[in-house]
């Protein structure tokens, strides 16, 4: 990283960083892998000229952003006035200039997605004003920050880079008794646990609300508790003050097994690595067990006093879960993980596959391509690699032109009792030739592909098509579908040396009935 700066800041950054001259933007090295913008407020008594200088810094950053490759990240720190001595209370010039500078940073980051703004006050607010600057080092070496703070600054900086890289832990595993509520459910009963009203109930209620909002930012919640599962389910249902209930947890292990085994099971059920787990438990013995047995799991110490929970929560977020931004995908994560975990649990509790499929209550909606779904259809042709028979990549415009030429294009949406996966499959038919057939990986493993194809063939037969032709074109990633048409009862017509195969199927005598575990509605 290359740092643009107006003070001596070398000590605050990793040793392999390089630095501009003081307030020097004449050189913007193009070989840097990223850039830092760290300008500090001028230490001057003439607030008017200081504020002008701050405005000039904004213009400089504007210029630098134009010189930098938009594919490289620029991390800009906000400005904090570290020292100012206004002689009158109504002199807000510098304060205003600094606020304007910071505001400009945020505006600039709206138009430049590679510019990430981080708030220096997060760091400086932890220290009293007189500790932030050591005037001896300012006069000796132009240090705008106390050099003694370099170690905590570097730690903070590393966390901020993690947050910009969107690195965070994925799953928070929670104990229940004396962690999410006060008291022991098995002893105190549903109405006896402390979760409302007076202290300490209030503190636990606050903690549950905090965790609920954390989960909405895409952190998966799981429960690992030594309790009777039925008691807990009843408490979730009947205690009116419960904020976190069954539906907020993607997976749970409520039993008397050791927690290390439970955590391992949770990891495989959710398909998340143990190194993405944070384990919160009030019992120091359980924490120690996890630290020893599963050292890759993060185990923060839990406060002894419930009134320390807000502080504990904020530190936990800062240490493990803070990210620069949250996407729409992240917000839906809890639902998706929960659905996948529920599906895999359901699968394990059925002895035969077809009763499992039936229990899923699957609804397949097959729609014609229209102006609303064409972008998604084109996107799937671009992104789907594995279950894709021909891997032809098309744009929105391609799809529209095919429709004008008379191609029949359908898309598939799938919902089951665990959730709605949205549009996850498509088929393109040009006359009697299947040009494209693909499905997203996340709906595979339930025989949906066969039901989808049969429904489409049924529509084609209805429209008078006698025979369909289909092909498989091999790629590095789609070998799982090389026998797909064979399995669907198509006749093998011929193969190419590169592995490509062609097929045909006479629709007149074909069995196109879809098994009754799939509820199909087709246009």
């Amino acid at each position: 990283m290359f740092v643009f700066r107006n003070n001596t800041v070398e000590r605050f950054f990793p040793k392999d960083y390089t630095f501009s001259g003081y307030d020097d933007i004449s050189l913007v090295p193009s070989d840097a892998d990223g850039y830092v913008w760290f300008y500090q407020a001028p230490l001057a008594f003439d607030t008017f000229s200081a504020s002008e200088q701050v405005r000039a810094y904004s213009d400089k950053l504007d210029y630098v952003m134009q010189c930098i490759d938009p594919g490289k990240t620029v991390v800009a720190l906000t400005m904090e006035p570290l020292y100012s001595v206004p002689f009158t209370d109504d002199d807000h010039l510098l304060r205003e200039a600094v606020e304007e500078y910071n505001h400009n940073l945020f505006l600039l980051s709206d138009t430049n997605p590679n510019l990430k703004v981080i708030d220096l006050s997060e760091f400086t607010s932890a220290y009293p004003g007189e500790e932030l600057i050591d005037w001896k080092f300012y006069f000796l070496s132009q240090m705008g920050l106390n050099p003694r703070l370099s170690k905590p600054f570097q730690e903070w900086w590393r966390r901020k880079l993690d947050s910009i890289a969107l690195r965070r832990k994925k799953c928070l595993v929670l104990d229940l008794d004396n962690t999410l509520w006060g008291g022991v459910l098995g002893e105190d009963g549903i109405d006896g646990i402390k979760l409302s009203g007076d202290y300490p109930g209030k503190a636990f209620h606050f903690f549950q609300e905090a965790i609920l909002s954390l989960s909405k930012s895409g952190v998966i919640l799981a429960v690992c508790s030594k309790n009777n599962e039925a008691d807990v389910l009843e408490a979730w249902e009947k205690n009116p003050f419960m904020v976190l209930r069954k539906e907020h947890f993607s997976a749970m292990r409520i039993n008397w097994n050791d927690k290390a085994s439970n955590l391992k099971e949770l990891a495989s059920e959710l398909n998340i690595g143990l190194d993405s787990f944070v384990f919160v438990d009030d019992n120091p013995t359980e924490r120690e067990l996890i630290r020893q047995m599963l050292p890759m799991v993060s185990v923060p110490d839990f406060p002894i006093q419930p009134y320390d929970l807000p502080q504990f929560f904020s530190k936990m977020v800062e240490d493990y879960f803070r990210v620069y931004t949250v996407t729409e995908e992240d917000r839906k994560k809890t639902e998706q993980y929960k659905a996948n975990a529920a599906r895999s649990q359901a699968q394990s509790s059925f002895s035969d596959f077809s009763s499992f499929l039936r229990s899923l209550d699957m609804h397949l909606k097959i729609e014609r391509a229209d102006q609303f779904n064409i972008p998604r259809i084109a996107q799937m042709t671009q992104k789907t690699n594995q279950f894709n028979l021909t891997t032809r990549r098309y744009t929105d415009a391609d799809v529209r032109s095919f429709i004008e030429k008379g191609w029949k294009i359908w898309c598939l949406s799938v919902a089951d009792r665990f959730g709605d996966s949205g549009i996850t499959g498509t088929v393109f038919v040009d006359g009697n030739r299947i040009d494209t057939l693909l499905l997203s990986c996340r709906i595979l493993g339930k025989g949906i592909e066969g039901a989808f194809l049969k429904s489409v063939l049924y529509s084609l037969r209805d429209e008078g098509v006698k025979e369909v032709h289909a092909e498989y074109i091999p790629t590095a990633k789609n070998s799982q579908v090389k026998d797909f048409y064979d399995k669907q009862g198509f006749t093998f017509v011929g193969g190419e040396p590169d592995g490509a195969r062609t097929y045909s199927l006479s629709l007149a005598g074909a069995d196109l009935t879809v098994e009754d575990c799939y509820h199909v509605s087709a246009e």
Partner: protein
Amino acid sequence: MEDQILQILKSVIGVDDIDSSVSQDNCEQWDSMAQLNLVVELEMEFDITLEPEEISEMRTFSDVVRVVKAKKAQ
């Protein structure tokens, strides 16, 4: 204390093969940035405050040892 100071000096100038004969004149890595880091580390390690005049006196390893010792003796 000499050993401790030598270790600090090695880490701030980023050179391992120096001994008590090192000085700003015979070691180019001992530049102004290293001097600044040296002062901060010495102040934190020995819980002292070095004055600017003392800092500018510290041009060789033996200068540093002398200044720090005098400071601790105060």
